[in-house]
């Protein structure tokens, strides 16, 4: 049984036509099911859980990346399959999974090409794509064995499970081959640390003095399974995940292999 969870922002009138088209296409393909809209008054997880208890086997997140984030936890815990119908902006996850926008996504859902993906577990919550942690002055312990000190003036750690590799190459200005990284099936998190910001003089110095600057790696990429991050000065750590900011003083992050069944398209980017 399919269960469609509409994000709150879709109650805007401008989305009515596209939702109508999606509902019609779902009926045509034989994948229609119960539809519920997110409400400010009812807890979303409770709403979804009630429907799983009533027999829903596939939960469809209709909306954007934030909608996916709202259902990931419950889907992972209850072992139900997740589908996505992306609408509007901020749909990076759907793009990586090869799911087109609007009613075209119904065709992908009906094909039921299911992949079993890894998830990031931070403290007790699951995340699908990535976490950006402002970890200035924080202690970063990997695999309980080694500690990484961040460069001065650079306090951010990027932790990826699922990512658009082209975007990563642009963001971090990478020239190297990154085919081995950012794979949501490899049982590893990819921890990325950007180099410290350089002033113009040191950039020129590096270009002139060093024989082969391209051979020297500025960026750090460390595949890991477990990371613990503690704030040294009791200042809170700010974590950005799926466009939401969370504040914590201690982070226990790990990869959980093959935790989520999700419907993907053949144009997926992994």
């Amino acid at each position, binding site marked *: 049984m399919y269960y469609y969870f509409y994000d709150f922002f879709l109650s805007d009138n401008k989305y009515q036509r596209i939702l109508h088209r999606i509902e019609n296409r779902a009926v045509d393909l034989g994948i229609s099911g119960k539809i519920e809209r997110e409400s400010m008054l009812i807890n979303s997880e409770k709403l979804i859980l009630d429907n799983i208890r009533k027999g829903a086997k596939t939960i469809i997140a209709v909306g954007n990346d934030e909608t996916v984030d709202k259902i990931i936890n419950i889907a992972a815990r209850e072992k139900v399959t997740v589908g996505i119908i992306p609408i509007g902006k901020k749909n990076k996850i759907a793009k990586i999974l090869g799911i087109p926008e609007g009613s075209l996504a119904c065709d992908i859902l009906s094909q039921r090409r299911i992949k079993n993906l890894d998830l990031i577990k931070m403290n007790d919550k699951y995340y699908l794509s990535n976490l950006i942690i402002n970890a200035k002055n924080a202690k970063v312990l990997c*695999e309980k*064995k*080694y*500690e*990484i*000190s*961040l*460069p*001065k003036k*650079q306090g951010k750690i990027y932790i990826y499970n699922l990512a658009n590799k082209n975007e990563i190459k642009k963001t971090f200005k990478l020239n*190297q*081959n990154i085919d*081995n990284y950012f794979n949501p099936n490899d049982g590893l998190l990819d921890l990325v*640390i950007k*180099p*410290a910001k350089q002033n113009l003089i040191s950039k020129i110095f590096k270009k002139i003095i*060093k024989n082969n600057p391209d*051979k*020297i*790696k*500025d*960026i*750090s*990429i*460390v*595949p890991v399974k477990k990371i613990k991050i503690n704030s040294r000065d009791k200042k809170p750590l700010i974590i950005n995940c799926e466009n939401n900011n969370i504040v914590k003083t201690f982070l226990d992050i790990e990869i959980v292999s093959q935790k989520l069944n999700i419907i993907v398209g053949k144009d997926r980017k992994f």
Partner: protein
Amino acid sequence: MFKNQQIDEKTIETIIGQSVKVKGDFQTSGGMQIDGELKGTLNIGTDLIIGENAKIIANAQANRIMVSGKIKGNLKANESLEITETARIDGDLETKVLSTEPGAQINGMIKMSEISEKEKNNLKEKSQETEKNNGEE
């Protein structure tokens, strides 16, 4: 740089950039390139590249090692060890195949293990392949 490099950069999984410091015991089944600082021990499954800017205080073990930076500690390469002109090593070395460039500094003992006929042939094949690839480029 060596013309007949045995190290394949494609095997590199972990990259420690030059502005990052690592402290502790590092173990990986893949390859590693270090351009930053590391204190502890290194146990690498395939290839280890110690870049020109790297400062390492550790005992390191890998299949193939290429050193261009500074290291205080013993190095054990199960297959081959390449030392470039910018390398400064304070420690003992153990390997089967060793190559050094003029200018490299080594303060320590060198222990060479015996190389089997099969390994000799493999090395020959690899270096011929690399020469062929370099010629094509």
